[in-house]
């Protein structure tokens, strides 16, 4: 058995990585829905879900159970093959795009093998992500059309027209970053920002490419059909847009696809513009390596304190447990014997922190901004965003010609 594992080690490592990453992404999706409901609720001066489990933490499990157990009707007159294909396609493409993202600079050294963090390190990383974005238009268009009903058809056509229009600005706004980095590979893009490690936060791509960053972020929000660009799926407008006729599990597939593409966009924003796994502090400030412990320790203690005084008994058991785990990890990362673990954790810590900030900005916009009308949306995409992103390319090329890429 051990020799079998040793012989097929690469494939087994890949399979384990894929399974682990899928599990992590789906869990993050589920708790992202919880996070969104809580944050939007607190922005609206109310509590979000707080009954199902302590602070509503078991709400995603309840939602998942609902999606699995609810009746799944198929409307009459739908085109069966396309009706079943559309959510499958949307979900498969959204999950595939996570495979390209690198999660840490250094490989994990276990049992004599080097395991890189990240499934596929493609030389055409960004281009492959654009290919997946281009194909995800089909999920929406086919869903809207195959439902044999007028609201989904209109919603699907509007939504896919919006996605196709903003795709252009999306790809154009990234060209500036590619010019600065000289490669499509995502790891190379991050390493190009690490060229001057003493600059810390000022070495990131967002400063030379601020216009490109805003164009990319706006175009990406429009691509993922989120507020303020979510007219095609808003409840007051088109019932539910292209996924009106989809019930429990197929609707859940669209839902997961949308949140996963939110996560992918946040990952891309941090990698391309905000330095990925690079710390914002200059490299000479090595005391900042204790930051994970400094954050985890008080947070764990606060969770314990909050949990002890919680209303339900279940909360009074679970929350202090979670708090102790966090505190122990925080202390463990600070002891001198485990410094190699701390060094290893630095990269993924910063990457995940920045992704979290972007997800918060997504949720924040959902709670705050009104939505665009459809014609305002289309004219914004074609008449403002596309010329600005093309201008960004021209300015960047000119600047590189005059002053060199770094």
């Amino acid at each position, binding site marked *: 058995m051990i020799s079998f594992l040793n012989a097929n080690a690469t494939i087994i490592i890949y399979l384990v990585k894929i399974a682990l990453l899928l599990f992590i992404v789906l869990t993050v999706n589920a708790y992202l829905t919880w996070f969104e409901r809580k944050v939007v609720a607190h922005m609206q001066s109310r509590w979000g879900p707080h009954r199902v489990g302590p602070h509503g933490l078991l709400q995603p499990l309840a939602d998942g159970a609902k999606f699995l157990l609810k009746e799944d009707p198929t409307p009459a007159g739908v*085109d069966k*093959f*396309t009706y079943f*294909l559309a959510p499958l396609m949307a979900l498969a493409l959204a999950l595939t795009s996570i495979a390209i993202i690198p999660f840490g600079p250094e490989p994990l050294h276990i049992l004599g093998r080097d395991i890189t963090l990240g499934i596929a390190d*493609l*030389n*055409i990383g960004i*281009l*492959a992500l*654009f*290919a997946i*974005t*281009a*194909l995800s*238009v*089909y999920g929406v*268009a*086919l869903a809207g*059309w195959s439902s044999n009903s007028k609201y989904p*058809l209109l919603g699907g*056509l509007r939504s*896919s*027209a919006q996605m*196709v229009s903003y*795709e252009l600005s999306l790809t154009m706004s990234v060209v500036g970053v590619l010019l600065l980095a000289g490669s*499509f590979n995502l790891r190379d893009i991050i390493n190009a920002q690490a060229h001057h490690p003493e600059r810390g936060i000022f070495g990131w791509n967002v400063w030379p490419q601020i216009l490109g960053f805003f164009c990319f972020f706006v175009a990406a929000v429009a691509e993922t059909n989120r507020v303020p660009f979510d007219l095609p799926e808003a409840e007051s407008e088109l019932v539910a847009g292209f996924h009106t006729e989809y019930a429990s599990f197929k609707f859940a597939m669209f839902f997961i696809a949308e949140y996963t593409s939110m996560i992918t966009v946040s990952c891309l924003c941090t990698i391309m513009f905000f330095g990925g796994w690079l710390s914002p502090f200059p490299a000479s400030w090595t005391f900042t390596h204790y930051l994970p412990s400094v954050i985890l320790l008080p947070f764990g203690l606060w969770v314990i304190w909050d949990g002890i005084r919680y209303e339900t008994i279940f909360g009074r058991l679970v929350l202090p447990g979670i708090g102790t785990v966090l505190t122990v990890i925080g202390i463990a990362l600070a002891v001198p014997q485990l410094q190699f673990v701390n060094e290893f954790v630095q990269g993924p810590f910063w990457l995940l922190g920045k992704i979290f900030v972007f997800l918060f900005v997504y949720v924040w916009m959902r709670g705050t901004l009104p939505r665009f009308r459809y014609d305002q949306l289309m004219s914004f995409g074609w008449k403002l965003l596309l010329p600005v992103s093309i201008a960004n390319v021209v300015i960047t090329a000119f600047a590189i010609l005059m002053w060199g890429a770094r």
Partner: protein
Amino acid sequence: MTPQLAIFFVLAALAVLGALNLIIQRHPIHSALSLIVVMIALAGLYLLMGSEFVAAVQIIVYGGAIMVLFVFVIMLLNAGVEERTNVSKLAGVAGIPLAVALLGFLAAAIARSNESAQAGVEAGTLANTKEISTMLFKDFVYPFELTSFLILVAILGAIVLAQREKS
């Protein structure tokens, strides 16, 4: 049977089945979906040959833009299932074996041609994108600029053609 040969056969079978499905299906939307499958299989073949840039461009432009255009037009025109017309039986009975025979001769001719067609296709050594872009902007810069002009003309033509009449 090396892994590359196995992947080639899988992708080639996918492409041929997609093309056959395009012919067999009666609703144009299913034909469009089959064509998308063919294009993705071809992109996989380009990747197998080492042309990763062409593979990515194939998916982005062909699969993500041109076929989306087809799907939109099929939806907008509400193209229905094709009607049965009276194709002569003779065409089916005599035509298909003749077509297969023609293809067989073509394939045999290719397989028996000079040795350069037998040489294996291996992944390129230089970075594919760099090579293509150098050639595109140095040797082929004039056709490149012409194609941008061509796209502009096509956009204008499509807008003019699809306008509603001002009545």
